[in-house]
């Protein structure tokens, strides 16, 4: 993973740090304890607030605490069985799958091509870069508030599109393609999710653009020159030279976007809410409403645990791999 750090051009001496350690350990015993003492509070806080609390949530998810009064009697996996049978949660899983998929594709593809275009030493490069990057500075709440109006079916871009005879229902559409009946829900691509993808992509493309731009600038010009001398076309250079070099970055972008997407809450909550027939609901929204609006704490905890597992599937191998890559 450390290739990606190329952005920080001033930092070439990365890997030497690790190798040259053991010598001084023995010498500076007192200082080593001091070092441990300084990092200990953080470790303790993380142990409690991350791992302890996750354990506690797991415990709640196995309890009967489904009213506003805590009830920690053991319920086994009832809450998990309930949410997996629940229409709303099944819809959440469907929506999350397609939202994550389209969102990642959109952010990666758009970010990469914009980066390649901007990397052509264009005039006004800075202007373009800033136009695509500034949404990163905005919150999902602001993004949601704005796009709620822009993609409102009875106003917004529809007013412009109507000149061409087009009318989209955007996030109010309840259509699901191809609508296979699986479990309690119609499985397929919910059309309303596309509106969410547009808003989220608008906000996050800057991130992947910046990542790819940094990556592109790290590809040695000689590589491309050599390929040109060999008579490769620009397309071939892109496929054979540039893309392979960008792979680790693409991998990072995918991981980061996946974890944003799987836990997304603010954007959905402010832009659409759960939506008609729960076409725009996501586990994060469901968890919040189930727990804090309906007081089904144990069910909310169960949803949270499922979310954690989904994210962990992506993240844990990534973290372990990056550790190995760096040692």
């Amino acid at each position, binding site marked *: 993973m450390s290739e990606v750090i190329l952005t920080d051009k001033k930092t070439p001496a990365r890997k030497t740090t690790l190798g040259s350690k053991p010598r001084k350990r023995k010498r500076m015993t007192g200082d080593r304890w001091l070092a441990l003492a300084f990092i200990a509070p953080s470790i303790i806080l993380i142990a409690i607030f991350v791992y302890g609390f996750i354990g506690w949530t797991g415990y709640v998810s196995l309890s009967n605490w489904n009213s506003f009064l805590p009830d920690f009697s053991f319920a086994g996996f009832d809450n998990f069985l309930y949410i997996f049978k629940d229409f709303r949660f099944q819809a959440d899983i469907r929506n999350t799958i397609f939202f994550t998929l389209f969102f990642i594709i959109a952010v990666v593809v758009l970010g990469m091509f914009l980066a390649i275009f901007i990397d052509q030493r264009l005039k006004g490069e800075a202007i373009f870069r800033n136009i695509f990057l500034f949404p990163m500075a905005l919150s999902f709440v602001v993004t949601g508030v704005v796009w709620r109006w822009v993609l409102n079916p009875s106003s917004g871009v529809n007013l412009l599109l109507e000149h061409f005879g087009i009318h989209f229902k955007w996030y109010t559409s309840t259509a699901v393609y191809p609508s296979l009946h699986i479990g309690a829900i119609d499985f397929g691509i919910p059309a309303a999710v596309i509106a969410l993808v547009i808003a989220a992509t608008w906000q996050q493309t800057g991130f992947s653009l910046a990542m790819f731009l940094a990556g592109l600038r790290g590809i040695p010009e000689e590589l491309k020159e050599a390929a040109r001398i060999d008579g490769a076309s620009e397309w071939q250079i892109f496929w054979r030279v540039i893309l392979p070099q960008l792979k680790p970055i693409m991998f990072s972008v995918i991981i980061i976007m996946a974890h944003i997407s799987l836990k997304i809450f603010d954007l959905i909550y402010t832009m659409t809410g759960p939506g008609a*027939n729960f076409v725009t609901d996501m586990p994060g929204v469901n968890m919040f409403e189930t727990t804090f609006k309906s007081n089904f704490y144990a069910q909310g905890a169960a949803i949270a645990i499922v979310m954690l597992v989904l994210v962990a599937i992506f993240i844990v191998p990534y973290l372990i791999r990056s550790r190995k890559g760096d040692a």
Partner: protein
Amino acid sequence: MKKGLSLLLGSIVILALILTGCGNSDSKSSSGSSSSNNGKLEIFSWWTAGGEADGLKALNSAFNKKYPNIGVKNEAVAGGAGSNAKAVLATRMQGNNPPSTFQVHGGAELMAYVDAGKMQPLNDLYKKNGWDGKFPKDLMDLVSKDGKIYGIPVDVHRGNVLWYNKKIFDDNNLQPPKTFDDFFKVADKLKAKGITPLAMGDKEPLGATTIFEDVLLGVLGPDKYKQLWTGDLSFDDPGVKKSAEIFKKMLGYINDDHSSLAWQDADELVANGKAAMNIMGDWAKGYFTSKNMTYGKDFGAVNTPNTDGSFMIVTDTFGKPKGVKNSKQVDKYLTELGSVEGQDAFNPKKGSIPARTDADASKYDEYSKNAMNDFKDNALVPSLENGSAAPQGFLTKVDTAVNVFVTQKNVGNFINSLKQASSSLK
């Protein structure tokens, strides 16, 4: 690096300027709301805006005049039509840190706290103030359990109201519908004219579930409607199925963009003539009047189809949690809430009617006067959507089922979901 640093310093200075600039105006609001309870009464509600906030202010200042030594702190929580406040309240009650008194819908919502052993009975307060018989019996049933009274009803709203744009109805020679048949006849005519017959805003569940509970009331009548929530009438009842069919038919007359609208947006459609009717509790009156519309002239209100003689009550009550400090002062505040003066200070501003039947009708507008009359002699039934009829857990499931039904319109599935949900009704 240097340039960046100076810019950073610059922005810090700017921040500091903003800080001092706004700090003064802000200090007032923040000093009045530290979370420690330094002897002041904490009045917890979700009345943060518009008429209800004004009503609460009027009530508090009246109380202040009577008892200048008792501090009152308004702990209103904004957002989510009360759901944020309920979440905060639940958290505080769990932590045994209750406010001095709090707004809660009469019925199931209040009883959740009573059943959890968190509330004190108020029978003595009622006796001391001679309040017996001043509130309708059906209403007292919503705040009582096993002969003990746990809440003081402050206001009453009506849930079964159909609002209509008077101009549209006059222009098309239509009469507001009294029965479901009328409704569909009117709706067909409007549809033929290209006017959306029924505006619905179900971005939040309120918009759709309100219609369904009003249809249930219309089909089943008040007695059977009530039995539905006590578990004495099964959701298998043919009346429930008929209600679902009617509800489904009504959904054929609504606006396309309903799922992106809140209830106010739906009323906006009625107000600006894009839609003809809307079914919503009578807090919608406040919305229409805020648009400079006059009751009886620009907009009208009738009972929802087939519900003449029934009054779907939505009532805000205040209770006394166990473990409150300064218990005597709380009693004084509750006494003010239950008094005629208190109720007449609050309700005209909020646009609701008083829970007492002996209030001064001259202080209320024409719509409220009519509602006050109905309130005296109609059958009073609890609203499901507003937390009176059934516990929150059941309501959540009904909301989910209604949301799905609005799209899928599958009566069989809908009844099944309701039946499954009803298992939590005991």
